[in-house]
């Protein structure tokens, strides 16, 4: 792909999300989502092998369906109530249809099965964009419509199915897709109770996923087997990676614990005891496959001299500074939690 095309498409990708974030009108929001879909398609199909083509076709069909459903719901809302604004969806029928369409776009649990399959066909960079940047626009729309407890149901199913689906996978990109589904479930769980907390969960998820995808990119691995040789390639990164994975799983001294902690606290405050318990227990499923990754990556290596020779290391051309920054944030941001309570923002 020529750099000019790449630049145009990346710029348009940003433009689409920005349009959706800025819009108050359903038509503009829909248009932004369509720009997003159209702009990422050339990036997805860049390698031109059949698997990428298949993934792109699936992605396009799913996103087009979701966008059409969204437009249908918006026009239904305008027909029923005469209002086109995003925050004015009051009738239950368009609300439900819009929620379903947006969760199909994001890949939430009952509509999630396209996400691992699409992610498996992409290269890691585009997979990272799909797992993080593409969630922003539907997320903001979902935050703005007044919704009921329906999102809590969606969130709970996403956490459970995201954990279950990732259990038997050996492919890293599929595992990352299921991890994305589970984390989106946590965001949806608290979206109606405290939207700012949901946004913070999204930010923390983006940071954690960014560092993990970068590690995979530096290792050039896409399955668990080849992950086990990574201590020969990048020793220091390999020692830190289990911590990143545990942070994604949400263990206490790491950043990933922060959203889960606050979400559980908020749900208990608002008397959702059973839901909070089920969510916390289902997080163990996700934790299991993160643990399996870290087991294969580091815990199987005996702490003595390796019989292998170290592989030849050239000057690393990968993105080092962003990786270092995001990894530090993934590991050490929990003590910054009191900042969230300060009236800085």
């Amino acid at each position, binding site marked *: 792909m020529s750099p000019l095309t790449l630049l145009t498409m990346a710029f*348009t990708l940003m433009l689409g999300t920005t349009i959706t974030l800025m819009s108050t009108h359903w*038509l503009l929001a829909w*248009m932004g989502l*369509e720009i997003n879909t159209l702009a990422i*398609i*050339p990036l997805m*199909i860049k390698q031109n092998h059949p698997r990428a083509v298949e993934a792109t076709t699936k992605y396009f069909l799913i996103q087009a369906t979701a966008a059409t459903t969204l437009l249908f719901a918006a026009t239904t809302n305008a027909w029923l109530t005469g209002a086109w604004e995003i925050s004015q969806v009051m009738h239950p029928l368009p609300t439900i249809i819009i929620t379903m369409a947006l969760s199909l776009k994001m890949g939430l649990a009952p509509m999630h099965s396209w996400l691992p399959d699409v992610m498996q066909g992409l290269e890691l960079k585009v997979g990272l964009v799909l797992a993080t940047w593409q969630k922003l626009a539907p997320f903001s729309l979902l935050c703005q419509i007044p919704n009921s407890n329906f999102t809590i149901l969606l969130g709970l199913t996403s956490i459970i199915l995201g954990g279950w689906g990732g259990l038997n996978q050996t492919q890293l990109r599929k595992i990352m897709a299921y991890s994305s589904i589970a984390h989106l479930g946590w965001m949806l769980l608290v979206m109606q109770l405290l939207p700012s907390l949901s946004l913070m969960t999204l930010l923390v998820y983006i940071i954690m996923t960014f560092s993990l995808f970068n590690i995979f990119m530096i290792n050039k691995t896409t399955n668990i087997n080849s992950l086990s040789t990574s201590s020969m390639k990048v020793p220091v990164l390999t020692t830190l990676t289990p911590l990143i994975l545990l942070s994604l799983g949400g263990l206490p001294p790491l950043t990933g614990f922060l959203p889960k902690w606050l979400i559980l606290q908020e749900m208990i405050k608002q008397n959702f005891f059973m839901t909070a318990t089920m969510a916390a227990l289902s997080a163990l499923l996700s934790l299991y496959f993160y643990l399996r990754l870290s087991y294969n990556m580091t815990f199987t290596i005996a702490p003595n001299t390796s019989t292998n020779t170290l592989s030849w290391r050239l000057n690393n051309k990968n993105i080092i500074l962003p990786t270092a920054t995001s990894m530090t944030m993934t590991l050490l941001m929990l003590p910054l939690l009191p900042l969230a309570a300060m009236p800085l923002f």
Partner: protein
Amino acid sequence: MSIMMCLSLVLLILGLAFVASNPPPYFTALGLVLVAGVGCLALAILSGPFFSLILFWIYLGGMMVVFGYSAALIAEPFPESLGSGYVLGLMISYMCLVFFTAAMVLHFYDGPLHLLGEISSFNMVQKDAWGVALMYLCGGVLLVLGALVLLLALFVVFKLTWGMSFSVLRPV
């Protein structure tokens, strides 16, 4: 006029069921043209003749491309549409589904579809022409943005189809 409306809606549903029940591509394209035609007829009766005209032209243009493409791609010597048991069975099952849904709607909202009640064939003001005028008056930025999206779609299609031997579209 009410009879025309009824007829077009019934034909719309029949055509959609026919398209959905996997006939060969020639007949599918024909069914789509039928659906587009009666859909535009319904829209025109519901006091939107300008929109229905535009939609009909654009849709027919697209359908010609689809028909040509599918006719060139599919080599089926003996296409049969409703004669085959498969297509007929699917169509009958889809129609059963439609009747079930219609019965549910009638049951829950107890009344006919109120599309039929809104027909006034003696409109002095064309609502759609008024809306188009308003769109060109106030929605300038939005129109430019829409044109930009179409341009982007064109570039995406160029990018996808560019390159004969290594790209997405290639001779098999």
